[in-house]
């Protein structure tokens, strides 16, 4: 339970910070930079989600399908 909560808050934090950086950069007229920051943050979060999803599916497989 603990690990998951951590991951959730981590993703929320990253999301919020990325959003702030994005808005700051956008305000200063550096749209391209803002975009890159978003993309990087998204990739990081996606990586976390995917690895967690992988965990989930493996668990399901072992429990329901006896492998």
């Amino acid at each position, binding site marked *: 339970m603990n690990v998951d909560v*951590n991951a959730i808050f*981590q993703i929320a*934090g*990253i999301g919020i*910070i*990325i959003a*702030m*950086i994005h808005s*700051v*950069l956008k*305000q*200063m*007229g*550096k749209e391209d930079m803002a975009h890159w920051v978003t993309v990087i*943050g998204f990739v*990081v979060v996606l990586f976390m989600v995917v690895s967690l999803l992988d965990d989930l599916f493996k668990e399901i497989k072992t429990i329901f399908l006896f492998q």
Partner: protein
Amino acid sequence: MLKLIGAVLVVLAGTMFGFAKASAYARRPRQIRQLIAAFQRLETEMTYGFTPLGEALLHISGQLEPQLAAMFRRAAEPLNAMTGVTAAESWREAVDACWKQTALSSNEREILSQLSFTLGTSDREDQAKHLRLAVDMLKAEEENARDEQRRYEKMWRSLGVLAGAFVVILMY
């Protein structure tokens, strides 16, 4: 606990980086302002004081920020020591050497090296004309720099904190 200290350090580092970047934006207009004042004084020294270039540069360096003063001193030294270096060479060399320490951008550097070609090699009127031209160009740059300062100073400050927080979250 150790993790917490590390996190605080990372955030602090990010914040300081941001503030350093922001202060560079604040320094640039100030240094351009000083350069303008310096050139205006140089013009006075040339047209009214008939001060030789080396001495004039040395005088002026006394009233500038350390980085700019170093540049002026460095340009003045070979001239006063009579090493056989021309004023243009000495000035360019000094600009090249000390430019990194100042907050000036390549535009100002271009103006400074343009000035080097005429520095000390013509009569008073011509010198004054070139110095005034340089001052005018620097004024335009100053306006530019102030605009950038307004825009980017705050940005870098918040960006530094945010980047620090980002790294902490990633590692936590």
